[in-house]
């Protein structure tokens, strides 16, 4: 499996930052960055990462299975994550979720037909102080109202 030269450089630097023989420490960051490029963690990708980190494919699958941020199926170009954990729930996180789901016509961990947006109901994303919070890929949106969510989704659709 081949990656872009930028990613290759990043991975090489990553492996250098751990002592020799401890390449497995790079497993999670390596999975995250390669996922960003490839889109999801395929069997092939898991094998490639396993080879680079000196672990078995099964051990990579253990990690992938454990973390919800590592995904084995292809998600939308924008991955919309709505927190419904306690802080956000108290100030309308659940309404945001219901609204987004209805508007996009998809449920948890599903992708729109055109593949542009995917939706995920997530546990705490560490933005309780600015609840209700949502995340699009790596970007946070704070104090989100239903109108803002509407606008956000419309914008996302327009970009595609």
């Amino acid at each position: 499996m081949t990656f872009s030269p930028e990613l290759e450089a990043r991975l090489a630097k990553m492996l250098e930052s751990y002592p020799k023989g401890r390449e497995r420490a790079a497993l999670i960051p390596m999975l995250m960055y390669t996922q960003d490029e490839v889109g999801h963690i395929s069997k092939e990708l898991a094998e490639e990462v396993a080879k680079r980190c000196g672990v078995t494919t099964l051990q990579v699958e253990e990690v992938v299975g454990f973390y919800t941020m590592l995904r084995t199926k292809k998600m939308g170009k924008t991955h919309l994550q709505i927190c419904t954990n306690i802080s956000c729930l108290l100030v309308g996180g659940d309404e945001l979720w219901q609204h987004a789901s209805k508007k996009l016509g998809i449920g948890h961990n599903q992708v729109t037909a055109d593949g542009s947006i995917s939706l995920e109901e997530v546990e705490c994303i560490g933005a309780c102080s600015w609840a209700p919070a949502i995340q699009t890929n790596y970007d946070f949106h704070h104090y989100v109202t239903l109108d803002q969510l509407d606008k956000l989704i419309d914008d996302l659709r327009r970009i595609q």
Partner: protein
Amino acid sequence: MSNPVNLTIDGKAVQAAPGTLLIDAAKQSGILIPAFCYYEGYSLQAACRMCLVEVEKFPKLQAACTLPVAEGMVVRTEAASAVQARKTTLEFLLTNHPLDCPVCDKGGECELQDMVFRYGAGESRFTEVKHHVDEKQWSPVVYYDAPRCILCYRCVRVCDEGMGVTALGITHRGAYSEITPNKGDHLNCDQCGACIDICPVGALTSGIYRYQTRPWEMEHVGTICTHCSDGCKTTLGVRNNEIVRGNNRDSTGINGEFLCIKGRYAFDFIKHEDRLQSPMVRRNGKLEEVSWAEAVKAVAARFAEIKAAGGAIGVAGSVHSTNEESYFLQKFARQGLGTPHIDHARSGDVPALIHALAGKTDALATADSLYHAKAVLVVDADLSQQHPFLAFQVRANVRHHQAAVYTVTRGPVREEQTAAKAVHTADYLAGVRGLGEDLKKHADLVIVFGDGIKGAAVGELVAFGDSLGIPVRYVCLVDYSNSRGAMDMGLLPELGPGYHPAAVRGMSLPQMAASQDLAALWVVGADPLAGGKRLASGKAFVVVQDLFLTDTAKQADVVLPSASAYEKSGTVTNVTGQIQRLKKGLNIMGAKPDLEIFGLIARAMGVDAGRAQNEAVFEEIRKSVRGYNVPLPVLATGGAAQAQPVNGRVDVLPDPELVRSAGDTLFTSGSLGRYSKILGSVMEAPGALYKG
């Protein structure tokens, strides 16, 4: 013990070495702290929370499996708070665990069942529907029932650390966690079944034992595995004259809990439909079933005739027979039949090693020394494939004592994964010499060598060992359960029992086959004419004693059905010279142990070869075979007594060209394994196999 730590456990003053884990210290003083995930010899997990104990001055309960002992520690293992915590833990474990104990294979010997009996938690506050996942079959021998799993990680660790295979992992999270095999839906591994045995509950079950019976219904017969030469003790579960399982959970025997697929599952050859159950005599060119009396009479009459006429009788001994049988056979042949032509299929040059070690003491390694030696050198052997128990010992040594492993082999072997240095060469001695400087650094060394080192090379290897200036001990690898014993008992044309030169040098097996005037060939549990070879002498009277109709038996004039190691008693000697006793597990109708057959033939011929009875023959072996004067109580109690035949030169050395290992792997073993359907059913094998 240097500066022991003093502590109090349950009011009992206890001393333990510094660094000892609390759970071990308690066990040493007879206090059992319950635990699921903790398992002696494997890495710590602290996942199950069963071993929580109250320790004074600690604000909360502590996990005894990860807490090292400290001076003045006061521990209460059964404090009310600890008992309550365990009860709650059990209730929690039972939230998804199905209560199908009546059908579960583990019922009756389940650790979870025992714990719930002990601590209660008979009622659950959990009213939600249990999370159910269907049972999966991962291989012909491994089944996994996820809801029963309590996620103790024992199987994952035993596979990774104990076996060096890493075929199991845990995927997903929380209540949805599941053990996962390395190939997604199936296992590609050694199929050793260690994960099944180590499972505290019935999550991993064996495809062979599955739903067959219950643990208390079986008779447990501790005997020695009859496949490879490692001599592992396997406890056969016998019910209604049938073996339903093999394991060694009581950890007696040299192998502790270890067993490979052969010891644990490949006992099914004894019930193969091709098993011979009646003697046969050739009449009009066809083998016809006859009575034992008739068959024995036919053999005895013909032997007596040939003996009287001065014809040459060739005798081929077995590498699976007991020491008693081999000894009696060569004695009967040499004294009763008056023939020097005795041989067996040799797979390691033990006589050359004994000769090279003349004058040394303590130069033969045992299975235990492979676990304690500071360094191990493996020459021309794929231990994981051919000697799984020795490989397990080496892995445990690396894990527990950081031993240095060196390998000199033709191709890649599993031991390389943890080896300090691995050399690939076909010139083994050169490869070994290249490691001289590295080996010298270690306090002691065990050299394990296969059939690539034989004849003069053995002497050179020992000379190399001497040159290192450190204590070196040796293991000469041989193939089958009593290959070593067959040699010690003198089933050789050149050497009698105890490596004393035979009065007359006889013919070796290839010479017998090529001899024009061989009058008779008596084959006991061997297959010298495998692959349809023919004897040069067309008139030879061929008698075969075997479990199955082998290629040789198909050419025989008389075929006598013999008993396997699981159907008789006696002693066998393993690859490292440890003598252990077989215990009879069952009867197969029609088959007789070889010793009994020898006795019948001797009596019918009117030859006095001594009593054909195990104890009497072994008494004679103890007197006449050097190194075999072992204490009987050790054997009687199921222990392994070390034969140490190293004290003198072997004056006549057998031809090294006849030494050839069969190169079996984990899933093949020519003579018996081909009749085991289980061995035949597992296809995939781990890693690059060592192919000859």
